[in-house]
C-alpha cells in the first residue's frame, strides 16, 4: 500500500550520495542540483519522517553551499523538529536556524515546540532549542519564551546554563522587557564559579555595553574583579572592551583600571591581549601618560616584528593614536614611511593615512612633493589613493593647511601629469573653488590652467576631462591675468579637443567667447589710445603700450617684466617661465595688448572661424548654439575692424556697433562670480503677497494644453529631421575637407607648441595617440624617496611650527555658515534605548523616574509597537503609554502569570535583600564606602513591589571601587 513512500525510502539518495554525486559532476553541476532538488520536493512530502528528514537534510546542504532556495520547505522543517527522534530534530533545527527569519510566515508555529524542547529533560534537545532561539528569535518568540530561558539560566547543567546566558542577548535585543525578569540572574552569573558561564556572560555584557555603556557603570566592580583575577585571555579581552567603553564616562574608574591594564600589557605574552590593552589605552586612557608610553613601546615592537599581521595592526593602532597622541606616530615615522613601499596594498594604504596625519602647515609642501614622486612609480590603484589623500588632506577646513596657494595650485596642475591620475573630478572642484575663494592666486591659476589646456596629451585621458573643464573655465573667467590670450584661444580650439565630451566642449567654446571678447576689448582700447597718442605726438611708437594707462577694469600682471618685454624679443613662453609668480600687482594687461596688432586680431578671428565653422552644425545643441554665438560675433566684428583699420584717425569707436557690443559683453563678463553660501536662498525674504504653498492645481488645465503639442511632437520632428538630414549630407560633403583642415590645424598646433609633441613627426600625424604626459623616467628608485621623506619629516618636525613664511597667507574667502556642512540631524536613537532604559532602571533605580518603578512589572508591559515607535524613549513616558494604551495583561495572561510566579520566587529567595535595602536607607554614607552593600543594592533593586525611590538621590554611581 505505502508503495510510493516505501519506494522513496528504499531508493532515496542520502546526503552522502548527493555529495559524492556533486563531486563527480564537474561540468553539469547545476543540472545535477536541479535533479536533486526535484527529488527533494517529492521526498519531503512523504509522511515517513526518516524520508522527510533526509530530504530536508539534503536541501539544507544545498542551501548552505549552493545557494538553493529552501524557503518553501519551512513547514517541513517544523514537522521535523516535532519528531521524537533526536536525529530528525537535529536536522529540522539546523534547517530552521539557517532559513528562518523575521518575516517567515510559519515562524510562530514553532513557539510551542521550542517551549517543549526547552523544558525537555534531554540536555541536547534543550541546547538545540536554545541555539535555534539565539539565531532566529523574533519579538514574539522572545517574549513568549522568556520565562523558560530565565529558568534555564540557573540550570545545574553548565552545558545548558551557558547557552541560556548566551541566548539572553538575543532576547534582550528583541524584547527589552525581559530585562526585568532575567537581568538580575545575569548579573549573578558574573560571579559564577564556573569559568564557562563567566565566559558566556562576559560576552553578553560586552555586546550590551557596546550599545549603551552608561547603563552598565554600576557593574564596574564585578568587571574589575574579572579583569584582575581571570586567567582566561578571551574573557579578559572582553572585559577590556567593556572598560574601554566605561572609562570615558567615569574618570575615577579610569584611574583604577590603568594599573591592571598596564600589568597585563607588561606581563602577557599573548599578542591578542596586548593588542586589546593597547587599544584600550589609546581609546580611553589617553590622559595617563605612563600607560600611553608603555602602549607606544608595545606598538613599536609590533611595527618592527617580522609578522606582517603585527605590523599592520601596529599601523592601525598608530592611526588611532594619531588623533590625540600624534607624538606616538612621529616616534615611529621611519617605519611608517618605509611601509609606503610594502608589498601589501593594505599596509601601504594604512601607512599613507598615517603620513597624511603627520602633515602640517610647515611640511605639507615637501611631503606632497615626495608623495607625488611615489605616485609616479606606484600601481594605478595606490597612485590614485595617494592623489586622493593629498587632495582631501589639503582641502580640509577650507584649505586650512595651505599657506602658499601658488604652490598648491601648481601642485594640482602637476597631479594631472601623473600618468595614472583619475582624480580629475576632485581637482576640478578644487581649482574652481580656489579660484573663487582666493583672489591673489588667480594669476597663477590662469598660468596653470593655460599649461593644462595647451598640452594635447592630457586630452587623451578621459579621467582628466573634468579637470580640463575647470581649466577652461578659469582661463575664460580670469583671462585678464593671462599673458597671452591668443595662445589660450588656440589651445581651446585645438584639434584634439574633439576628444572631449560635449558638455565640456561647450565650456571650452564659452571660454573662447570670453577670451575673444577680452582680446577685442583690449585691442580697441589700445587702438584708441594709439590714435590719441599719435595725435598727442608721442614719438616712440614702441613704448606706446607701456606708457599708456590701462582701463580701470583691467588689473594686474607683472610690472617688472615690462622691461624684459621691451628689450628682448623673447617669446611669451619664455616669459612665462621667467615669471616666478611673485604676484606683485602693479600689473597690466600690457603684455597681451602689445601683441595685439591689427593683423593678429584678424588672424585670430579667421582661426576661430575656421575651427568653429564645422561645429555650427553639431548635433549637440549646447555646442551648436555656443559655436554660432561665437561665429556671429566674429562676423560682426570682423567687418568693422576692417573699417576701423582703414579709417585710421579720428574714429569715434563708440559709434561703431561692434565696439559697443564688445564693450557691453566685456562688462558683462567682468562681473565677478563669487562663492555662494548654501543657506543664502533661505535668507531671501518672501515678497509680500507671494503665497508659496498655494495649491497650483488650477494650473493643470493650462498645463494640459501645453503638454498636448509636446506629446504629439512627432509631427514636429519630421521637418527637423529633414533639416538634420540636410546637415548631415552637408557634413559628409564637407568631411574630406574637414579632415584636411584638421590635419593642417594639428600641424600648425604642433609647430607652435612643439614642446608638447614627440620629436619623431611621422607617427604623430597619423595616430591620434599621444605619449603619456609624464613618462616614468624612474631615474630615482623608491628607496631614495623613502630616505628623502624620512629626512624631510625629520627636519620639519624638529623645526616644529616655525615656518617664517616669506609672504603672508592670502585671504581665503569663507562664507559664514555656508561652508560648514550641517551635521546630519540628531543621532537617531533606536529601540536600544528602550533596553538601556530598562537596564538602567534595574541597576540604578535613580535614573528612571521613581514613580514608575512602583508599578508591577506585569502591569507595565508596553506593547511592542509602542516601544518601537518611540524614539528616545523616556521610560516614564513609555509607561504612561502602555497604561493608557493597550492592556497587555489581557493580551498575554500566561506571561503575566509566569512573571508573577518568578517574582514570587525572587521575593522568597531574596527576602534578605529587603532588609539590606532598608538598612541602606539609613546608612547612605557608609554604603558609599562599602561595595558589598552596593552589591546588595543591585540585588534589591529589581524587587518590583518595593518603592525604589528610596535611594534615588544617590543618583550617580559612588566610588564603587574603593
Amino acid at each position, binding site marked *: 500500500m505505502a508503495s510510493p513512500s516505501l519506494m522513496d525510502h528504499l531508493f532515496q539518495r542520502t546526503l552522502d550520495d548527493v555529495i559524492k554525486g556533486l563531486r563527480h559532476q564537474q561540468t553539469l553541476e547545476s543540472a545535477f542540483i536541479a535533479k536533486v532538488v526535484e527529488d527533494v520536493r517529492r521526498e519531503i512530502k512523504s509522511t515517513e519522517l526518516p524520508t522527510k528528514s533526509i530530504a530536508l537534510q539534503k536541501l539544507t546542504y544545498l542551501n548552505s553551499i549552493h545557494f538553493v532556495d529552501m524557503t518553501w520547505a519551512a513547514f517541513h522543517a517544523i514537522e521535523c523538529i516535532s519528531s521524537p527522534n*533526536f536525529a530528525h530534530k537535529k536536522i529540522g533545527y539546523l534547517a530552521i536556524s539557517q532559513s528562518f527569519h523575521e518575516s517567515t510566515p510559519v515562524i510562530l508555529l514553532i513557539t510551542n515546540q521550542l517551549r517543549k524542547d526547552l523544558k525537555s529533560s534531554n540536555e*541536547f534537545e534543550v541546547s538545540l532549542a536554545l*541555539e535555534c532561539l539565539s539565531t532566529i528569535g523574533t519579538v514574539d518568540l522572545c517574549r513568549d519564551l522568556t520565562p523558560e530561558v530565565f529558568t534555564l539560566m540557573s540550570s545545574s547543567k553548565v*552545558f545548558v546554563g*551557558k547557552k541560556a546566558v548566551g541566548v539572553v*542577548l538575543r532576547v534582550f535585543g528583541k524584547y527589552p522587557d525581559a530585562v526585568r525578569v532575567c537581568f538580575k540572574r545575569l548579573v549573578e552569573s558574573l560571579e559564577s564559579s564556573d569559568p*564557562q558561564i563567566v565566559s558566556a556572560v562576559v560576552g553578553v555584557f560586552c*555586546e550590551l555595553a557596546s550599545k549603551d555603556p552608561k547603563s552598565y557603570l554600576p557593574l564596574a566592580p564585578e568587571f574589575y574583579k574579572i579583569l584582575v583575577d581571570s586567567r582566561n585571555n578571551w574573557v579578559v579581552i572582553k572585559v577590556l572592551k567593556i572598560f574601554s567603553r566605561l572609562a570615558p564616562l567615569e574618570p575615577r574608574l579610569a584611574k583604577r583600571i590603568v594599573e591592571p591594564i598596564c600589568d597585563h600589557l607588561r606581563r602577557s605574552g599573548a599578542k*591578542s591581549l596586548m593588542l586589546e590593552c593597547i587599544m584600550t589605552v589609546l581609546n580611553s586612557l589617553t590622559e595617563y601618560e605612563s600607560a600611553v608610553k608603555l602602549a607606544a613601546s608595545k606598538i613599536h615592537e609590533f611595527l618592527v616584528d617580522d609578522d606582517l599581521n603585527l605590523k599592520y595592526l601596529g599601523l592601525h593602532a598608530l592611526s588611532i593614536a594619531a588623533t590625540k597622541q600624534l607624538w606616538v606616530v612621529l616616534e615611529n615615522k621611519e617605519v611608517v614611511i618605509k611601509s609606503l613601499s610594502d608589498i601589501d596594498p593594505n599596509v601601504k594604504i594604512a601607512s599613507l593615512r598615517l603620513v597624511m596625519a603627520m602633515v602640517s602647515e610647515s611640511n605639507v609642501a615637501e611631503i606632497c612633493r615626495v608623495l607625488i614622486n611615489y605616485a609616479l612609480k606606484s600601481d594605478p590603484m595606490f597612485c590614485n589613493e595617494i592623489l586622493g589623500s593629498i587632495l582631501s588632506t589639503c582641502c580640509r577646513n577650507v584649505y586650512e593647511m595651505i599657506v602658499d596657494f601658488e604652490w598648491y595650485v601648481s601642485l594640482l596642475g602637476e597631479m594631472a601629469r601623473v600618468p595614472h591620475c583619475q582624480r580629475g573630478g576632485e581637482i576640478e572642484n578644487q581649482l574652481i573653488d580656489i579660484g573663487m575663494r582666493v583672489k591673489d592666486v588667480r594669476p597663477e591659476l590662469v598660468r596653470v590652467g593655460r599649461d593644462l589646456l595647451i598640452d594635447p596629451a592630457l586630452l587623451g585621458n578621459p579621467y582628466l576631462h573634468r579637470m580640463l573643464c575647470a581649466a577652461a573655465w578659469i582661463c575664460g573667467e580670469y583671462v585678464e591675468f593671462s599673458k597671452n590670450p591668443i595662445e589660450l584661444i588656440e589651445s581651446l580650439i585645438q584639434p584634439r579637443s574633439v576628444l572631449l565630451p560635449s558638455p565640456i566642449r561647450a565650456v571650452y567654446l564659452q571660454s573662447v567667447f570670453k577670451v575673444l571678447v577680452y582680446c577685442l576689448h583690449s585691442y580697441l582700447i589700445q587702438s584708441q589710445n594709439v590714435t590719441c597718442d599719435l595725435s598727442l605726438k608721442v614719438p616712440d611708437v614702441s613704448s606706446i603700450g607701456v606708457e599708456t594707462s590701462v582701463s580701470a577694469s583691467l588689473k594686474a600682471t607683472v610690472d617688472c617684466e615690462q622691461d624684459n618685454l621691451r628689450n628682448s624679443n623673447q617669446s611669451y613662453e619664455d616669459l612665462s617661465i621667467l615669471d616666478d609668480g611673485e604676484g606683485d600687482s602693479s600689473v597690466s594687461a600690457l603684455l597681451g595688448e602689445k601683441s595685439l596688432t591689427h593683423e593678429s586680431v584678424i588672424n585670430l578671428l579667421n582661426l576661430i572661424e575656421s575651427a568653429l565653422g564645422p561645429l555650427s552644425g553639431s548635433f549637440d545643441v549646447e555646442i551648436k548654439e555656443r559655436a554660432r554665438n561665437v561665429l556671429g560675433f566674429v562676423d560682426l566684428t570682423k567687418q568693422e575692424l576692417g573699417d576701423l583699420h582703414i579709417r585710421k584717425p579720428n574714429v569715434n569707436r563708440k559709434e561703431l556697433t561692434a565696439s559697443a557690443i564688445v564693450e557691453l559683453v566685456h562688462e558683462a563678463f567682468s562681473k565677478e562670480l563669487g562663492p555662494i553660501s548654501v543657506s543664502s536662498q533661505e535668507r531671501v525674504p518672501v515678497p509680500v503677497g507671494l503665497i508659496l504653498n498655494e495649491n497650483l492645481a488650477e494650473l493643470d488645465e493650462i498645463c494640459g494644453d501645453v503638454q498636448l503639442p509636446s506629446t504629439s511632437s512627432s509631427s514636429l520632428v519630421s521637418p527637423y529631421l529633414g533639416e538634420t538630414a540636410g546637415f548631415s549630407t552637408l557634413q559628409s560633403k564637407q568631411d574630406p575637407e574637414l579632415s584636411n583642415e584638421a590635419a593642417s590645424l594639428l600641424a600648425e598646433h604642433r609647430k607652435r607648441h612643439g614642446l608638447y609633441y614627440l620629436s619623431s613627426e611621422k607617427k604623430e600625424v597619423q595616430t591620434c595617440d599621444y605619449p603619456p604626459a609624464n613618462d616614468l623616467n624612474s631615474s630615482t628608485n623608491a628607496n631614495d624617496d623613502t630616505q628623502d621623506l624620512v629626512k624631510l619629516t625629520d627636519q620639519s618636525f624638529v623645526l616644529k611650527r616655525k615656518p617664517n613664511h616669506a609672504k603672508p597667507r592670502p585671504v581665503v574667502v569663507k562664507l559664514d555658515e555656508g561652508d560648514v556642512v550641517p551635521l546630519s540631524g540628531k543621532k537617531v536613537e533606536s529601540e536600544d534605548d528602550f533596553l538601556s532604559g530598562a537596564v538602567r532602571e534595574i541597576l540604578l533605580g535613580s535614573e528612571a523616574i521613581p514613580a514608575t518603578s512602583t508599578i508591577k512589572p506585569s502591569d507595565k508591559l508596553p506593547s511592542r509597537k509602542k516601544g518601537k515607535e518611540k524614539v528616545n524613549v523616556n521610560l516614564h513616558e513609555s509607561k504612561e503609554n502602555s497604561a493608557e494604551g493597550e492592556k497587555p495583561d489581557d493580551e498575554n495572561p500566561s506571561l503575566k502569570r509566569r512573571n508573577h510566579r518568578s517574582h514570587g520566587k525572587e521575593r522568597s529567595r531574596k527576602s534578605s535583600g529587603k532588609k539590606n535595602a532598608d538598612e541602606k536607607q539609613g546608612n547612605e554614607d557608609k554604603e558609599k564606602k562599602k561595595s558589598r552593600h552596593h552589591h546588595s543594592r543591585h540585588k534589591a533593586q529589581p524587587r518590583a513591589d518595593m518603592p525604589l525611590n528610596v535611594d534615588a538621590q544617590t543618583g550617580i554611581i559612588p566610588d564603587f571601587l574603593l
Partner: protein
Amino acid sequence: MGIRFVLMVNKQGQTRLAQYYEWLTLEERRALEGEIVRKCLARTDQQCSFVEHRNYKIVYRRYASLFFLVGVDNEENELAILEFIHLLVETMDRHFGNVCELDIMFHLEKAHFMLEEMVMNGCIVETSKSNILSPVQLMEKSY
C-alpha cells in the same frame, strides 16, 4: 554582534561551509561570498591576514587548501579572531584526525555543531577544545 559570519572556502573559491550570524537573503549571500573570495584569494602569503570590506573587517587564514574567513565588526580584536580560527581548526583536527576539506564536506552538520558550541549570537562563548567536543561526541554516541 562581534562575528558576523564564518566561511570556509577552498582554493577554487567554492564555499565549503557558511555560517551567518545575521540574516542575509540568498542573493546577498551569493554576492558577499563572491566579493570576499575574490578579494582574499587574490592575496599572497606575504600579505597580512586582514582585509577591510564594506563596513567591517575580514580576518582570514589559510590551512592547506582551505581558507577560513571570518567577518567581524570593526572593534573586534583581529588577533583574537585569528586565534579563534586556529582553535576551530585544532578542534576539528582533534575530532576528525588530520582534518581535510573532504571531512568538512561530508560532515558539514558536525562542523556546524562545533561552531555552534563555540559561537553564539556572534560572541565567542566557548574556547576549550574538550568542552566543545564532548557534547558533539556524546550526541554521536547516543543517537
